[in-house]
């Protein structure tokens, strides 16, 4: 609350029980799909009259000119639900132009702009598959934080996590733009993929989606691996990170944590150690269901000195881990520290969810 007393305290705008009951009765009537009443009928008639006037005054379009298609809508059976700016897609959705967005559990996609010529979405997290109807009138754009994906008629997948963004194209062409992308733009055709790893100006790689070539390490941007020549053998810690990365990508979380534990035991400070501990914590928290171990890993990450962008994620995850292990005091402390360090931060909603403020 504000430091001074809000004016509300001088006002008497109390709500009576009768008012609350009246509004509830009206809400229930509308929710129950009651028959149209006189004001509604009148409103419809007035609207129809206005439409008639507008139509009569609108100049006739030249023959052959395409009709404006209007914004995209989500299809729910035979019903079309408008997708306004700010709408969230939480399930796989068929769109009114024949396109489709497939959402995997946990993915978060919101609509930023939806008009007859532009459809802009924001993938905050998770995996989404896009099948865009070719030849459509709209410019499709997917904002993914460190990159922007532009497309007209194609099939592609996006996977975004705290550390990585991966674009994989199955049909057609997409343009990937961003500060982290080599030359700030990359054209991907069918069969190609692009990975951008955490806070990594140079840590991106383009490869064939079906290629057996090894994928880049998520830690290559913050450690010694980046600067090594191909002839030099990797240092032991880098090799451990690489092994951890491989195990993680293969879905073997337990093995990945073992490699990471060994790696972070060899270096206690630095951005790479901080990222290693953070990844370790996430694996404990999300894959192995061990919030206690996760909390310890996040605390180690903070001691290692993470860059500010990573620190915010670490502190938010620490709140989650402590809440999940039942340490409500610890979660409260971690949440206070997060709010003090990042007032109005991008993870504030997550922190609030795990430790609601007063």
């Amino acid at each position: 609350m504000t430091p001074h007393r809000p004016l509300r305290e001088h006002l008497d705008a109390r709500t009576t029980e009768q008012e609350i009951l009246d509004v509830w009765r009206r809400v229930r009537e509308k929710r129950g799909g009651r028959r149209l009443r006189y004001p509604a009928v009148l409103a419809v008639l007035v609207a129809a009259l206005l439409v008639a006037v507008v139509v009569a005054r609108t100049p006739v379009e030249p023959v052959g000119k395409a009709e404006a298609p209007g914004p995209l809508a989500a299809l729910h059976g035979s019903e079309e639900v408008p997708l306004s700016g700010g709408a969230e897609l939480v399930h796989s959705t068929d769109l009114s132009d024949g396109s489709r967005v497939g959402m995997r559990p946990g993915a978060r996609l919101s609509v930023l702009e939806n008009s007859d010529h532009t459809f802009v979405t924001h993938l905050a997290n998770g995996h989404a598959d896009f099948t865009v109807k070719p030849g459509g009138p709209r410019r499709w754009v997917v904002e993914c934080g460190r990159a922007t994906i532009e497309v007209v008629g194609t099939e592609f997948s996006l996977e975004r996590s705290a550390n990585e963004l991966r674009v994989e194209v199955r049909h057609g062409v997409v343009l990937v733009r961003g500060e982290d992308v080599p030359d700030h733009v990359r054209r991907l055709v069918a069969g190609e993929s692009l990975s951008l790893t955490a806070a990594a100006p140079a840590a991106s790689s383009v490869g064939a989606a079906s290629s057996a070539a090894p994928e880049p390490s998520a830690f290559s941007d913050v450690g010694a691996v980046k600067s090594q020549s191909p002839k030099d053998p990797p240092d032991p810690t880098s090799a451990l990170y690489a092994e951890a990365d491989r195990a993680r990508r293969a879905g073997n979380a337990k093995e990945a944590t073992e490699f990471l534990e060994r790696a972070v035991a060899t270096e206690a400070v630095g951005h790479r150690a901080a990222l290693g501990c953070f990844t370790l914590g996430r694996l404990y928290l999300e894959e192995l269901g061990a919030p206690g171990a996760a909390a310890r890993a996040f605390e180690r990450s903070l001691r290692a000195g993470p860059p500010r962008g990573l620190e915010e994620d670490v502190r938010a995850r620490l709140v989650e881990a402590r809440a999940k292990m039942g340490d409500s005091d610890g979660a409260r402390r971690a949440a206070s520290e997060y709010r003090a360090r990042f007032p109005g931060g991008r993870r504030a909603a997550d922190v609030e969810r795990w430790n609601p403020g007063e």
Partner: protein
Amino acid sequence: MRGFAAKRPTVDVTTADLDAPVRLPLGSVRPTDAELVQRALEGNAWAEEALYRRYAELVIGTAKRLLGSADDAADVAQDSFLTAFEKLGTLRDASTFKTWLMQIAVRNVHRRFRRRRILRWFGLDDLDETTLEGMASADAPLEVRADLGALGRVLSTIPPTLRLPWMLRHVEGHELTEVAALCDCSLATAKRRIGLAESRVARKFGSAVPE
């Protein structure tokens, strides 16, 4: 342990207006918003009513103070709860129901201001608007009543885009970040709008905002 109610032991509770038994966590007769939202999404009418009951006073009261009209406030509350219940499935984080609902309400207040302006153009505005002074509590000192009267006159000259953030901040007492969330704008925009309104208030009022 807030946020982990699902893991707590539960007990079946039956209430009067109930479609199906609601499972409430033991030791907590007050289910969280997230639990109520989940139940409402499953079609439980009691959970919907519980959500309404929990926030009706907040929504109606806020709308009344912002709009100065009990009738308009009731309409705004009705529309806001209708929208909220219809779009409940799009709410990503059920624990943020309160903020989300208030965002909807503030948006509806905005629409109501626009509607008034249009009606005014056509000379159809027969609104019986209560001024801030008219809403002053019975025990408000005379000087506060005078301040509220002057303030109400100044506010009526400020466009709703600036007036609403200012009122959310100074009348309702929200934090700046809350104002930004409720107005669905960035923190910088909220600050700028409040600042603009504040300068107009200060210019016309001749002093700082009354406290």
